[in-house]
Every structure is written in C-alpha cells, then in structure tokens.
C-alpha cells in the first residue's frame, strides 16, 4: 500500500494540522502536545513502510522542542511538538512504533523530557556516575560545574531472580571490537532475554559540536565513527549546504560519490571478515581482510589517508582526483572484482558456513517494519529501503545500480546482501570514474551561515544516517543531531537473539554490523 506526498498532506490537512511544505524534509507538521500521536497514526495507516527515523530534542529557551522525523515510501516529514520546560511530559509512541523506544530514551536522558507510558525507562547513553536531573543538551547547564557521583563498586550478579544465568558480554569481550554491555540471560544454552547497557563510548559529540565552528565540526563528526567517517562528513556538509542554499559543482558530487562508495566497500569487507571470525572461521577472516587492503590503498591515493580521510568540506571536496590515478583505481577494482565469485561460492556451498549462518537470527518482515530497522538488516528481511534510491543525493540520481534485497531474514541473507553490495559498489565507482564531469571541485561559500535548519539523510554502509542541523546565524551551530543506523538496529538484535543458542549470539550480532561509537556518539 503506497501513497504519494499529496495523499499524506491532504489527510493531515483534513485533521486541521498546520503544514509547512519544504521545511525539514518534504513537510513539517506542527502538532500540539496531545495530537502528535494522531498525526503519526495517519501516516502509519497510509503506508506500511512508515517508520520513525529519529526523534530530535532541542532546547528552544522556555520550552523543549521534540521533533519526530518520519519516513514513508517516498517522503520524509517532521512532526514538531513543543513541551514547556517546567512540565516536559509527552505521551509515548512506542505502542504504535516499537522501534522508537531507544529514541525516546535518548531525548529523556539528554534533555529531560518524560515520555509517559514508556515500557522500560532508564538511562541510555549517559554514564552511570552522571547525576540525576542534569541534562547536558540544555543550554543553561554549566558543564564545568557538574559533579559526578562516585562509581559504584557492586559486583555483577551472576544469576537473575528467576534462576536464569546471566552471562555478561562486554564491556571487554573478544567478540566485540568496542565496549558495550549485553547481559544475556540464559537457561542452559538458550537465550531468554538480552539486557543492553550502551553508553560506554558516549563522548558528548552533539554538545561539543555546539562550541566548534562549522568547519571544525566536519572534523568532529568524522570521528564519530572511523569506519563510516566519510558518510558522517557528507551528511553534515550536505545539511549545511542546504541551509546555505549552495549547490556543489557536479565534479565534486561525483568525487564525493566515489569516496562514499570506497567507504562502503571497505566497511562491508570488514564486516564479512569479522563474521568469519565469529563463526570460528579464521581463514575466511584473513582472506577478506587481505582483499580489503587494496581498498585502503585506493582511499589513501585519492584522499591522502587510509581511514579518516577529511576530504569533504562545505562547498565540495578538498582534493581532486588526478587523471593519472584513474587507470590505477580501475586496475585495483578489477582485481577485487575477480575475487568476488570465490567468496560467493563459499557462501553458497561451504557446509560449515551454512550450518552456522542459515536460520540464525531470523527477523521477519513485519518485525523489521515495526522496529524501524535500516540498511542491510532491513534489506535482508525483504524491506527495500535505501536512501540512495528513495531520496538520491550527490550523484546517485545519475548512476544506475541495483538495490540488493533478500527475503530470508537470517544472518546468511544479511551477509549476502553485503556481498552483493560490494559488487554494486565496484560498479558504481567504475561508472563514476568513466563519467567524471570536468570543472571545479569546490565552490566558495559564505563565511557566516544564515539562520535556518535542515535535515539530511545518507546511506551509510550500515543503513540510513540522519542529521539535523540548526543554525542561529553565529559562527557555531545551534544544534546538531545525529541518528546513526546502528542506533536504530539494536532493538532488532534484542528481538532476534531470543530463543536461540548462546553460541549463535556472536554471528547474529555481527550480522547486524554494530558500530557502537556511532550509536553512543
């Protein structure tokens, strides 16, 4: 059941909602405090692929703004609410959209909004030693004067009241590259429940971005995640360019596309190798990472650094691609393309891979839609969302490529999605190199960003990456809100792990490709 923009807007206007077209996406809907659920219900009824992308909290002085960013099959709308600071309560939407649970918890943590009816309130990203009642993202908080509580020294209890054994995975665990704590409650070898505690990598990026200039913020947001760094940079500079109403030259768009696809290539090869490590297949891990090294060399050739490239800026890119480099890039990509059939054949025929990956961590399509998952996790369960196709940015509108969708919904399907996307990325880069327009790769932009706000979405390797930037005319942004794909995908893991053996938890976990530095920011 699909709908187009007009249907949504007509239905909303019929219920007397005020709509501003073209603001904050396709449209911005002003909703009074008790009517936001109704607006959301209209959107959910009209389109089955409606999902909540993010919930932004913003300090507006005397009130706190709560913006619900909702995506449908072919539009992106924002429902804007405001709650007064002395009584910041709002009704929860988790009964309509279970995937919004984490988003609401974060706004509660960082801005102090109370969502009535939330199923599991509690701390999400702030550290345990953070005092209650202090909300970092409020403008009147003096960070230097916050006194942290003393750390508690209680030991982890090894068994639950219900008699289940609690196995704590993390914060330090060989399966995880990053610290997070997942308490897995098991009965024998079967998992009954997973209790997450994220926030170990919370570095307060959103607050820090408010005290750095826009150009400094490009470097800051890049370091939210080293793996998908170019995507963060792209999303941020595109949002700023939307506020500035600048158009980047076509050559810059193509170069940005090439850098983004190289990012995707190295990230997918990394995950495919990491999955091999989790199922005990070290040889596969070594082979994938061996084939990933040429991609890092290409990134270094084009941008100057292997991992965090800092090659994007407001108005274009900072370095051009030399004509003499193009044959070298193509030669490397041809070599990489030759290796893909070997890996595909491994996934099709190797019995130990199939035994460990098929029918493990199955996510049904309805659950995928309700939990608002994004990226290969969604595409592995039959939900065909991809920002490069739904709302093309940079040069993706002009480059033909295939959107990869598998329907099985298990770990094997998700890994296959990534494998096929590797091939598609190689196609995209080659097409972009062949059709690279000439001209400038950068334009001058005004020093001062005028007041305004913009939303922007980018397809990172792990899924839809969302940015909201608000500027108030000064040198520093008013608010930068980041919603990363793993933040949206963790609830899917909490659901798919239940009922499976504990030995299946690592492969299941890696198949959703978690990046916790993205999640916690």
């Amino acid at each position, binding site marked *: 059941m699909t709908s187009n923009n007009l249907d949504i807007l007509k239905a909303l206007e019929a219920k007397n909602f005020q709509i501003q077209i073209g603001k904050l996406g396709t449209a911005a809907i002003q909703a009074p405090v008790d009517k936001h659920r109704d607006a959301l219900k209209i959107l959910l009824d009209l389109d089955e692929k409606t999902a909540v992308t993010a919930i932004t909290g913003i300090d507006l002085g005397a009130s706190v703004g709560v913006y619900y960013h909702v995506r449908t099959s072919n539009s992106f709308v924002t429902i804007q609410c405001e709650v007064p600071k002395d009584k910041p309560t709002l009704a929860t939407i988790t009964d309509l959209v279970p995937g919004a649970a984490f988003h609401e918890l974060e706004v509660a943590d960082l801005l102090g909004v109370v969502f009535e009816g939330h199923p599991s309130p509690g701390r999400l990203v702030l550290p345990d030693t953070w005092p209650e009642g202090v909300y970092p993202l409020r403008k009147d908080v003096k960070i230097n004067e916050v006194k942290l509580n003393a750390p508690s020294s209680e030991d982890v209890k090894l068994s639950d009241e219900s008699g289940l054994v609690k*196995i704590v995975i993390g914060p330090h665990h*060989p399966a995880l590259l990053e610290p997070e704590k997942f308490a897995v409650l098991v009965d024998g*070898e079967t998992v009954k429940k997973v209790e997450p505690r994220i926030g170990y990598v919370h570095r307060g990026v959103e607050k820090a971005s408010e005290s750095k200039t826009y150009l400094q913020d490009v470097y800051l947001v890049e370091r939210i995640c080293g793996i998908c760094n170019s995507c963060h940079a792209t999303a941020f500079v595109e949002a700023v360019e939307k506020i500035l109403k600048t158009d980047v030259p076509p050559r810059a768009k193509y170069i940005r596309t090439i850098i983004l696809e190289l990012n995707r290539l190295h990230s997918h090869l990394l995950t495919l190798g990491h999955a091999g490590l989790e199922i*005990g*297949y070290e040889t596969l891990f070594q082979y994938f990472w061996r084939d990933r090294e040429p991609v890092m060399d290409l990134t270094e050739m084009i941008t100057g650094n292997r991992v965090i490239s800092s090659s994007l800026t407001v108005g274009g890119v900072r370095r051009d691609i030399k004509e003499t480099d193009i044959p070298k890039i193509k030669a490397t990509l041809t070599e990489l393309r030759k290796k893909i059939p070997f890996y595909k054949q491994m996934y099709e025929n190797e019995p130990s891979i199939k035994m*460990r990956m098929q029918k493990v961590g199955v996510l049904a399509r309805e659950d995928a839609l309700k939990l608002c998952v994004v990226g290969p996790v969604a595409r592995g369960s039959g939900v065909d969302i991809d920002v490069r196709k739904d709302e093309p940015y940079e040069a993706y509108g002009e480059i033909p490529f295939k959107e990869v969708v598998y329907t099985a919904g298990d770990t094997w399907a998700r890994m296959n999605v990534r494998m096929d996307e590797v091939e598609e990325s190689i196609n995209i880069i080659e097409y972009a190199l062949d059709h690279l327009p000439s001209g400038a790769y950068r334009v001058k932009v005004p020093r001062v960003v005028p007041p305004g706000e913009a939303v922007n979405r980018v397809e990172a390797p792990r899924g839809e990456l969302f940015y909201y930037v608000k500027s108030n005319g000064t040198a520093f942004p008013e608010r930068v809100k980041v919603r990363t794909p793993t933040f949206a995908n963790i609830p899917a893991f909490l659901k798919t792990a239940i009922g499976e053996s504990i030995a299946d938890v690592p492969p299941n976990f890696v198949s959703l490709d978690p990046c916790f530095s993205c999640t916690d920011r």
Partner: protein
Amino acid sequence: MIDYLWLIFRVLVFPGFTFILFLTMFCDWIERKIEARMQNRMGPSFTGPSGILQPLADFIKLLTKEEITPNESRKTIFRFAPFFAFSVLIFALCFLPIDGASVIPNVSFGGDLIFVMALISVANFLLFLSGWSSSNPYSSIGAARVLTQFLGYDIPLLMLALAPAFLAGSLTIATIVARQWIPFMVLAPWAFVLFIITMQAELEKDPFDIPHAESEVVAGHETEYSGGKLAFLKFARDVQIVFGASLVTVLFLGGANGPTFFGLPELWGTLWFVLKVVAVIVISEYMTVLFARLRIDQIVRANWKFMLPLSVLSLLLTIGLAVWVYPMV
C-alpha cells in the same frame, strides 16, 4: 647400576620427558606455521631460524610471569589441575613405543591400550576441573563444554581403536605395533579416517573447538589462569595433541616401524615415529584451518547420529575382515 642409569636416561631424556617436550614444541611450531601459510601469512619468523624457538619463548615467558589465584576459586584444585593434566598425558605417552620399545622399559602389559585410552579421559577430566575450579562464568561454560564433548566422543573413539586391536589380535600396544607389517591404515581405511575425525573432536580442534571459542567464552577453561599454571595448561593441550597423533601413528601407521640403515635401530625407529606423527598433525591442522566452528548442539548431534553408528559399523566390518585377513597378517 648401568641399568638404572640407562632407565633414568630413557625416562628423563630420550625418548622420555625431554624428548617429548621438544617434540611437542616442534609440533606446536609446525601447527602455527601451517595455519599461517594457509591464511596467506608468515607465522612466527624471527624467534630462532624460521621461528622454531617461538613455542620455547612462549613457555619461558609464561613461567616468569606473576601467578594470580583468584580469591573465589577453589584454590587447591585450581593450583594443581594444570600440572596433573600435564603429568598424566606425559605418563600416557610413556606407554607408547616411541623408539620400538616403550619409554619405561618392560612396562607394557596385556590390555594397556584400554589403560592408555582411560588416561586420556582422566586428562580431559582434569582440564574440566581446571575450568570448574576457576569460579568464573566463562570458565564454567568452557569447562561444561569440554566435559560434554569428550564424554560424548570417548565412546566412538574406543570402538574405533578396537579395530586395530582386532586386526592384531591383542590389546597390547607393543603387539599391535609389532604385527603391523602392512600398516593397518591400509587394511582398515574406514577406521583410520573415522579415527582421525573423532580424534579431532577429542582434541577439541576446529571444527570441534567450541570449548576454546574465543568469541563466546573468552578463553574457556583457561580464562583465569596466568603465569606458570597457564604455561602448563597450554603445554598440556599441546601434549594432548601430540599424544593423539602418536596414538594414530601407533594404531594405524605402524609406530616406529620402518627401514633402518646404519647405526642404532632405535634412532631410526624414533625418526620414523616422529615423521609419522608430524604427518598426522599436518593432516589434522589442515582440517582445523579449512572449516568453521560448529555449535555444541551440532557437535553432540553429529556424535550420536553419525559417529557412533559409523564406528559400530566400522568395528563389525573390521571384525569380519579380521577373520579372513588374520591369516595373512
């Protein structure tokens, strides 16, 4: 007097304790090199020529580290389990005829094959105890998996080991070796292949190495160990692998049999024994590198559904053949 000195030399130096130590280190190096080369890497290269002293460096380094005993652990078992596991395995190796005669002279008795197999189980049980006494959730799960796996696979292992016993007409290891004019691998190839696979499960190597699955149980039953105890625990595992390979050699490949030339026949016997053990370890390491790890329920199911019926069939087949083939051998 000379006899006693000779006994001490045989037990402690060659082909006894010291020789077994160096053989174990050599096999550990071979395993690491094969794993590295299969993964397109170099493996240890700079510790001694081509990295051959790497296991020795690892062992010495571990011996010189601080030993930490957790407060919550059962201290006596925690302290002694690794050393006992190591000793039991070396003791079991002394029953095998490494150079034509068993290491401790005249120690073989009728039925010592069963005794040696029982010693494997004792050693595995001591490894389980090492994990159980650590009082660490990861160690407990790793130890439980060790127990599940070796108890399950002991049965087919024993049945498959009886195949050469039937072919040789005796349960004494020395007799089995002596009667192998034609190696039993040729006479009962089905038993050989199944025995190697079951030994892979018994030794907890890929695809059966779930007790050592890093990504789930950190380091399994070894998690809380450090220093000298860890050195002996890791060494016990390496000796276990050499023991498994030696058992395969003795039962199916003819032990130390082989052509002898000039000089002492014992040295040639040892050389053939070592070559055969290395060959088995190479085959086993190839299997390790080429497969992913199976889950514990898949391993247990594989045991009861495939290994056990197949080993019964192999036994029956071998008995049948022994009746006709025995006059030849």
